[in-house]
């Protein structure tokens, strides 16, 4: 997809590594636009308050506060759930696919998309619990040892959904956190610098500043941009993204089978999983577009979110809009040409019945607005994109309401027809969940980097002349001599700093031959450093076996549990299905496999990198804080007594300028 993007640049030519870091980190550290943020936050908090009020009433009185009735047992509650999980799936899919395709422009979008996915999942995850008649027993949906000797009913799509949403939450958190990790380190270092400045100046807020740096430090888990960290990080990020893509398919299948598993007219078309997926991704991209446009506007990130990004988002929306239109068309053709009378009746009622307004909202909002994006001008107009995104989101919600309510209002027996009207508390519940989402989003915007610093930096190094020039200039000033009066030993090791990855790699290559038994070499930098891996001998290290083993073990374990529980441990007669209903267990097992794989990756990321580690001698390197900014460091750690620091220093200092000569060489105390 990235290849199709033409015209315009993805990053302004005058962006430098330092500049990118500064722009993005300034938001969480200095809170520009504070007033606007507070106004928005007040609004969101108000909605959140409404949510708490509604939940309180709901728990006290029961789901009867909604307008659901004997026929329309599912209405706004499940529609809201489906919508949120759709938005989450869409956002996650956007971020993950862009990552996997290596679209170099994704930096401006994918952090927002990942965050949306996470927060939408959080909002969605509440619904399966609160919509229950007895929410305090929600955990009966999950397998756990109990005195009833009972398992959940693994053939139920609702159980799949419970597993799906738990897995989805884990993957979202994981992807979001992994992506955020280096940026957290950047934030930590910036905050650290600021804290030191305040300490020196004996500023009154110095303790607060230090605390802030420490909090960022704890969350950053001791990330120091080591070449080994980066290597595993890149793999972990991509693998989790891959698992995410698979999970999205599984989740949307689960959510659609929740309807398609029935006999109900209008629900059990084979197209349902596809249209669910399409509309989910569509709504996810729509909401992502709205939020990206908002952040760009509020924080003035025009430099990072360029017209070309808008163009790409626009094309994506257009593409999905057409897919959605195709799904509708296919459903109508299929039903009218091929369907039974009840299915035709449901479609007719959608168009002309009590809920025609909702249906037409859905179809018009999902199909029409995107069509203006055929125009290139519309595609690059932030307002147009935001408007389309918003309409798509509304359309997707209306679509869920339509699908649920029209079928349930009247299915097979005319006698069971019951009218349903959208009810105030149902809307309040949804508005409240939006409040929860917005509150968390605003907190995220305030305290965490909204645009991926790492990805923008990689893009800058690749494309922005200014960044490349800055590196060259710095390198040309390199005049490193070994430090004259290094402090008394014993040393932890020797460090050298560089302006570019190329220099670092060359230096590493140069010293890698020197007494490898006594020295542990590493490189550190603000971006992944694939060129350093060979000199460091890390080539071929892979996280994939862990992921694969985790996923396979998790999936097989879950599948085995389903089989054991259903066919051997406590056999029940369910809907006339055979004892070994093996196909029923595939969806939740896949979801569980994705979660298990993700957990395995996360553990591998930490363990292989010996993280978390808050205090590390490398942090003693003077100026090391710039490792999350624009500097590259070489460290040679002493492994035993025979470590010869002077020899390494000499070798480094002897390297030709702009081909590995360090900017500075230092001996680092233990």
């Amino acid at each position, binding site marked *: 997809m990235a290849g199709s993007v033409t015209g315009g640049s993805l990053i302004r030519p005058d962006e430098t590594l330092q500049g990118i870091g500064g722009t993005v980190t300034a938001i969480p550290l200095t809170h520009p636009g504070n007033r606007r943020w507070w106004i928005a936050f007040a609004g969101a908090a108000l909605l959140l308050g409404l949510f708490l009020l509604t939940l309180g009433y709901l728990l006290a*009185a*029961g*789901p*009867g506060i909604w*307008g*659901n*009735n*004997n*026929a329309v*047992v*599912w209405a706004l509650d499940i529609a809201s759930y489906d919508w949120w999980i759709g938005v989450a799936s869409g956002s996650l899919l956007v971020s993950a696919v862009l990552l996997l395709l290596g679209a170099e422009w994704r930096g401006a979008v994918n952090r927002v998309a990942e965050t949306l996915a996470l927060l939408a999942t959080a909002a969605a995850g509440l619904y399966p619990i609160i*919509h*229950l*008649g*007895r*929410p305090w*027993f*929600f955990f*009966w*949906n999950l397998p756990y040892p109990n005195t009833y000797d*009972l*398992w*959940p*009913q693994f053939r*139920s*799509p*609702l159980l799949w959904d*419970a597993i799906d949403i738990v897995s989805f939450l884990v993957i979202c958190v994981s992807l979001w956190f992994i992506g955020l990790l280096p940026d957290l380190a950047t934030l930590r270092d910036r905050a650290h610098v600021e804290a030191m400045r305040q300490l020196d100046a004996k500023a009154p807020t110095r303790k607060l500043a230090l605390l802030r740096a420490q909090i960022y430090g704890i969350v950053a888990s001791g990330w120091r941009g080591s070449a080994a960290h980066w290597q595993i990080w890149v793999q972990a990020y991509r693998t989790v993204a891959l698992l995410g893509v698979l999970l999205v398919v599984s989740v949307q299948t689960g959510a659609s089978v*929740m309807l398609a*598993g*029935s*006999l*109900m007219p209008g629900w059990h078309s084979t197209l349902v999983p596809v249209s669910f997926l399409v509309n989910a991704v569509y709504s996810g991209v729509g909401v992502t577009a709205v939020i990206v446009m908002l952040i760009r506007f509020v924080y003035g990130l025009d430099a990072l979110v360029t017209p070309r990004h808008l163009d790409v988002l626009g094309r994506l929306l257009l593409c999905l809009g057409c897919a959605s239109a195709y799904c509708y068309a296919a459903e109508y053709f299929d039903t009218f040409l091929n369907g039974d*009378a009840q299915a035709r*009746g449901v479609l007719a009622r959608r168009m002309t019945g*009590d809920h025609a307004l909702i249906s037409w909202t859905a179809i018009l909002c999902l199909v029409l607005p995107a069509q203006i994006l055929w125009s290139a001008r519309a595609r690059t107009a932030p307002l147009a994109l935001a408007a389309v995104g918003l309409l798509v989101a509304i359309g997707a919600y209306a679509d869920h309401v339509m699908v649920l309510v029209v079928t*349930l209002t009247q*299915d*097979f*027996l*005319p*006698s*069971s*027809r*019951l*009218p*349903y*009207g*959208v*009810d*105030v*508390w149902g809307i309040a519940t949804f508005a409240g969940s939006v409040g929860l989402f917005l509150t968390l989003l605003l907190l995220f915007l305030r305290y965490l980097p909204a645009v991926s610093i790492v990805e923008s930096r990689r893009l800058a190094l690749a494309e922005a002349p200014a960044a490349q020039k800055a590196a060259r200039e710095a390198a040309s000033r390199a005049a490193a001599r070994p430090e004259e009066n290094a402090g008394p030993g014993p040393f932890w090791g020797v460090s050298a700093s560089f302006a570019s990855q190329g220099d670092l790699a060359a230096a590493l290559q140069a010293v890698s031959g020197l007494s490898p038994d006594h020295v542990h070499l590493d490189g550190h930098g603000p971006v992944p450093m694939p060129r350093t891996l060979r000199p460091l001998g890390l080539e071929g290290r892979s996280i994939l076996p862990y992921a694969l083993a985790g996923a396979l073990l998790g999936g097989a374990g879950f599948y085995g549990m389903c089989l054991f529980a259903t066919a051997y441990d406590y056999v*029940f*007669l*369910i*809907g*006339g*299905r*055979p*004892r070994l209903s093996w196909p029923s267990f595939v969806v939740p097992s896949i979801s569980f496999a994705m979660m298990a794989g993700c957990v395995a990756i996360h553990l591998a990321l930490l363990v292989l990198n010996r993280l978390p580690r808050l205090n590390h001698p490398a942090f003693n390197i003077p100026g090391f804080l710039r490792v999350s900014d624009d500097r590259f460091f070489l460290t040679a750690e002493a492994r035993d007594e025979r470590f010869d620091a002077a020899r390494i220093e000499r070798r480094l200092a002897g390297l030709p300028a702009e081909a590995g000569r360090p900017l500075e060489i230092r001996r680092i105390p233990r």
Partner: protein
Amino acid sequence: MTGTPDLAALREKLSGGDGPRFWRSLDAVADSPEFRDYLAAEFPSASRLAAAPERRGFLKLMAASFALGGLTACGAGGGRDYEVPYVNQPERIVPGTDLSYASSSVFDGFGNGVLVTTRNGRPLKIEGNPDHPWSRGGTDVLAQASVLGLYDPFRSQAVQQLGRPSSWAAFRAALQAQMPAWRENRGEGLALLTGPVTSPTLAAQIARLRAAYPALRWHVGAGASRDGLYEGARRSYGRPLETLPQFDRARTIVALDGDFLDLGPGQVGLSRRWIDARRAAYADGRLLTLHAAAPTPTLTSAKADHGVVVPAGRLEDLARDLLGMASGGAALGGDDPVARWARGAGKALTEARGAGIVTAGLTASPDLHALVHRLNGALGNTGTTLLHVEPAAEQGAGTLAELAEAMERGTVKALIVLGANPVYEAPGALDFAARMARVPLKIHAGLYSDETGAHADWHLPIAHPLESWGDVRSFDGTVGLIQPTIAPLYNGRTLPQMLAFLAGGGDAEDALALVKARWRSDSEDEAAFEARFSEALRRGFWADSARPAETVALTQDAAPSPAPTAPAGGIEVLFRPDPTVWDGTHADLAWLQELPKPLTKVVWENVIALSPRLAEREGVATGDVLRIEAAGRAVEGPAWILPGQADDTVTLTLGYGRDVPDHLSRGLGYDAGPLRPVGASWRLSGAKLTKTGRRSVPVTTQHLGTMEGEDLVRVQALGAAPVGDPKGAPAPASFYPPPESQDRWVAAQWGMAIDLDACIGCNACVTACQAENNIPVVGREEVALGRWMGWLRVDRYYAGELDAPSTHFQPVPCMHCEQAPCELGCPVEATLHDSEGLNLQVYNRCVGTRTCQSYCPYKVRRFNYLDYTGGMTPVEQQQRNPEVTVRARGVMEKCTYCIQRITAARITSAKDAHAPIPDGAVETACQGACPTRAITFGNVADPGSQVSAARRDPREYALLGHLNTRPRTTYLAGLAPPAEPGEREG
């Protein structure tokens, strides 16, 4: 709103054949935008916020009114904390075990035989007494609901003097002070008002009272009196008589405004005799055809094989025409539906001379009754298919109108009202309350401190039939005994006790002794009588006590001459007892209030029914509040467009518009009383109908919907190809292998068959289910939201023409599908199958995802959206069946095929060395209550069982069978006469 529905177009559409063959209600057939506007107005979306709090308020009210009673009972929460054994174990009462007593239910003074199931000394459920010669095991809604009436917290709980709590002792003292004066002037100025008296004991007590006070005047008043019927008999035979149709000897039936299947004292016995005869005829390859002509639809006209809508004023003409044909006159000309119907009915009657039945209903005019008697006489039916007996009710009392007149004259010095509520029931023209105010001493005894109680000086609580000793005659005169199953909850006395006090002035006599005194002949010795009495008590009735058939001869008077036709113009108003709360006596029973009326499916109120044509002409939509005016009085109520209603006719039902403070019934519906004519007439001509411009949409449990070409209700025309599912055909293909073979210890495979031909839509099954299974009442607002909780509903479908449709009833319980879609959706195994084919619902496991109901194609599940059971008063909780779990908030529930009864039978058989459960040993609550035995339940794996036989019937079919859910509940198609050319399809 722009318009009323375009009914003309609609009618055209239906008759043109492109309307759905079966349709539910008007709005369903109308595919026009106007109708949709209409609907939008009927179901405004966001106007429901207030629902829950209001309902809760109502429950609080109930609790508050209970608190006055001061009875504490079991607390909520899990399990009892204490074991409280007896000090001395009473004989026969075993804690936790059912004990059944034979007794009688009372309906407007008439009895039906019932068995009262009690447990731990509490009456819980009413079953029909299968040995009772009149009711034969059937029950009606009032009998089923009477057990709720016992525990009703609205019941009068104390003696009141001028509205203040008093005591029996105070009352006794006050009266004893008056009695010498009464005795002295022979009871001059004393007036006694009762309801219809069929009880021999009560009659004896009244006789005793009249002997003590010879000048006492006795009057009888009832909300729905049978005076017109008796008057018709008097005109024909010179004395009041009850007519007993002998359906088993009949080949054809003609019902004019006839209500032998409708709710009423005779319903249980008559409908049973009718269906037995119809079944016997079907077994002979015949159809016991029912021709019905009615001005407003009734259950009888709904079951008609040949129905016609006739304006009430033309009924007598129609009877005269039939009489003409019976006497050899020529058939009527003309091609209007009425003439066609008359030709058909006349032909059928003359072909079946001596084997036909012509009946007229309770609400028919005396003229019509007289004509019907003559018609039956002319056809030779009298004495063969129609027997006449002396009325069960004592005759010879004055009427309500005479009493009102006497009060107006001021000749009534003391009025004693026993078990009647004339202030509410008397027609408005009598102005009873105002006239009653002129009486110096007013004593009212009733189950409720009702409108009359409020106007009386003394109000006395009477004992509920379930607390009383007594006796009562059924429709055919059989004397049933009433025995108490619990000590009076509220210190009420029986009517004979009160009369004994009034007559003798002594202390309250033993109620049992009063009954025994009535039945013990002087010559009989003590032991022989005791044996005879206890045998009658065991059976619940005096054997062979039915009234003997009288030989009757028509008087020589000429047949009634044509009455002057009603003045042209104006609306004809028909009055009918309500099909659930009857005349309002039972209006405080929440079960009856929430019971959907059979034809409109309206709950918690009454409506003004009007014909589509009238609605079209007046621009009236369902829910418009109408004002019906006549003779300076008016009634206002919501309109309901009722197909099958005669043009220019509106129907008002009784029993609503009650005004007793704090009572459940207060403020529900409108009171038709002000317009009611005085005397025996049930209709009023020349009324004026206006729209008030207000709207109040009645709450109904069934809305609209077309059949979309489906054959949900099937009709088997005699001689036509079977409409049922093919028998012996392989089961439809399935993805899944057949279930593993049933192991040999599985007791049975349960299944149910419902005969749609037998279902008369009477709702007894629905109420029985509610009583048996602790089904909560949710209140009007919740029903309006679509949350009616009944496990069993009776669907009503229309077919055919808009103005004179044929009506079909279809009871729908859980289908217990073998491949149940609901089970698949439940994530926690709260709904699943057992190996006996039951679709189980495990309430305590349910978390309330509602997936099962959203997957259910029959929508038979019910969800506890709010805490419907927690607000019940402790005294109401006493009625709960301890064998059935009371469902908590947030839990799904549904029909279980009365698994508690199945389990009881299974345990019994298991203890008995695992003998098979005999066929018929398990009877579901709905099955037991059904007066027409429409429901068969049993083991479908046993080819010898009744349900298997029913399933082999070629009429048998599965509802929505094409979905391959393989329901265990199946239906037998209704029957119809062979299609004749020119006959419309029915």
